């Protein structure tokens, strides 16, 4: 149930609009349990239901993912447009306007980047959930569903995140440019600074990282298909975690 709990926590932390788009892990588990205890008459029906649910979950992921992807494509382009227009306006008299807009763009673009990464995380965690539930199924029913099914999943749109990855990189490059604007060097990032960030996305991201780490710390069923532990410098993460907690928003 560990994954289930972690998933639940992720879902709670996530962007509200996304909450019902995640894997219905619990339901699937219930079905697997049902299958294994069902009398043989009901068994095939339960199995059919399981498969049906699996497929409809995948549909759900795909639809949501592609929709978000589409939106991200549009928004990235718009952000770049905004940036371009602000930069060209930079040399004109109302510089205050320029500066304010620049801040807004910076904030927006960082948040946008965050959202895209969270979508990748969405994809990843759902995949993990699927892999786990399939493993459970095979274990409980002695079936051989996992391998072929996971093959199919690997090809699904929601798992082929190459485009999003590309967008993220593009965004990062753009951000480099945005933050090139000369800044004073004082490094005074205190707790107040963190409060200024878009709390939800930031929190989400940190939570996602934490969850990932936990998930990969190994389990009792560590096997050839399990992922190795993450190599993440603990210091940064701890710092980030620390920063998110006591901020009076």
């Amino acid at each position, binding site marked *: 149930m560990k994954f289930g709990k972690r998933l639940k926590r992720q879902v709670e932390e996530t962007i509200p609009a996304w909450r019902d788009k995640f894997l219905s892990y619990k339901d699937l588990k219930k079905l697997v349990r049902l299958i294994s205890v069902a009398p043989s008459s009901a068994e095939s029906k339960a199995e059919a239901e399981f498969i049906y649910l699996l497929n409809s979950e995948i549909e759900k992921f795909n639809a949501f993912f592609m929709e978000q992807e589409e939106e991200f494509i549009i928004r990235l382009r718009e952000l770049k447009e905004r940036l371009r227009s602000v930069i060209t306006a930079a040399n004109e008299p109302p510089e205050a306007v320029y500066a304010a807009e620049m801040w807004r763009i910076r904030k927006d673009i960082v948040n946008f980047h965050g959202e895209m990464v969270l979508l990748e995380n969405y994809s990843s965690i759902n995949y993990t959930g699927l892999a786990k539930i399939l493993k459970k199924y095979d274990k409980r029913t002695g079936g051989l569903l996992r391998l072929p099914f996971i093959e199919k999943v690997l090809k699904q749109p929601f798992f082929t995140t190459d485009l999003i990855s590309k967008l993220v990189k593009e965004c990062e490059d753009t951000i480099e440019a945005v933050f090139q604007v000369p800044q004073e060097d004082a490094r005074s990032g205190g707790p107040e600074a963190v409060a200024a960030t878009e709390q939800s996305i930031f929190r989400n991201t940190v939570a996602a990282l934490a969850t*990932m780490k936990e998930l990969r710390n190994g389990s009792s069923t560590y096997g050839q298909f399990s992922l190795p532990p993450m190599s993440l410098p603990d210091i940064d993460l701890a710092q980030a975690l620390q920063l998110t907690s006591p901020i009076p928003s």
Partner: protein
Amino acid sequence: MSLASTDHVLVIACAVGILNILALYEDPQKKPGCENAFTSTIDLVRHIRPTHNDYFSITVASYPDFSVVVAELREFDSTGKSFSLSIIAIEIKNIILPTIKEKYPALPDSQQVSMERGPRSEHVTSCHTPFVSNSGSIGPLFSSAPGFSSDLHFSSVAPLDRQMITAPLVSQSSESGMWFPLAQSHSGASQTSVRKFTRESPDVSWSPVSLQGVIDNDSAVSNQVQSNCIMVSDDKQDDIWSDLIVDEWKELLNDPNSTDTQPKEAYSLGQASNISSHQPQTHLAIPSHSGEHYAVTSPTSAANSSAAKPRMRWTPELHECFVEAVNQLGGSEKATPKGVLKLMKVDGLTIYHVKSHLQKYRTARYRPDSSEGTSEKNASPLEGVSSLDLKTGIEITEALRLQMEVQKRLHEQLEIQRNLQLRIEEQGRYLQMMFEQQCKGNIDKLKASSSQSPDPTNTQATETPTDKKPQDDAGDDSPVSAKATEGPKQNKTRTETEAIDILDEHPPLKRIKGNENDLQ
């Protein structure tokens, strides 16, 4: 009806100024004797469309088979047609008969043509209202009907009143087709409720319940009319599902010429923008006795519904093309889906895709990055900032920088993880293959030398030490030879190699649950 005669009728219709066509197709299963040029109504429509483009408004009716409806409906969807779907869900001896309509703007003087099957000749009749009586024949009714064939089985009109309308009607006859009086009581602000079907009252109007198929489109174009014909003007469609009864026309068309399965793209796309201004969809509960699923839940938020099922995966290049087209048309406000679609000239792109994309585009422009994704709009710290306040500016920059760091970290990790997952599965496949080959080899050997002792090769395969593979309890993880893992390991990044090394270093352990807490 033969192809030729169908065409002939169409031409006449054109000439005569008829704009609405009721296209009927008779299921050959029901009437084995008839010959059909088309295999389905869709074919018929497909045929009509390219020949006459958008000249005609086509109504289609009477699908006995619901699943067929669904399939064809989807096709209509993807061809970019606007349509409204009326599903008349009346249980009539376990039959559900939907009526599907395709709607197009029709001009004021629309009349109706029903294409009929007639062994003698084709007749173009203009009818104002359809009628059905319980005797099992239809009589399209019209006063000024040229060339009325007795084949058409016109019967006298049975005036239908409200009571009749509500009652499920007419049993299905096993013979030639089913007859159901069709009437729509039209509830809504604009019109009176029941129409009586009489000879004298040509203004029967339908108010089909529109389902998801109805596209709410730009109110820019709302050109519809329907006067006295079966096709109802859309503004009469309300959210109220009025009682509907399906009318199935007996006279159907079509002789058996080969169907031309034209690719959907050949259709003139971009009709949707011409759809009349509809009211949003309504919910329709369909008692499905035939046991078919049709998830007809129409989202009431018309803006978000996308009727087209085939999902389009957009790319930046495609979007670029889109933006260019939009700009050419004068900007996101002025551009219409139809126009954009035409300009883009992309195969497989439908009006629905363009429409929904355009909507997203508009939203993105006019509410820049106040996305629905973010739950908090953290506007305040920045709004108040006078940009000259360096210190706050610096703090904010720091915060953003930190945020970026974390995000980048997560992104990086996700990438690594994904690649690992892919590799792992690839390995799994490879091993599985190897195992199967081994097994096969063994079986062959066994077959070849069945009298001999147990095959040593078999044991070898299963007992090779697996230092890479920690113990596990998954049934399908086949024992493997360590060497086999060398194969797929070609293109690894350094971090991945490290990860695999870690895998090596972590021998199979049964972790105590307490450990995980410590690691937090």
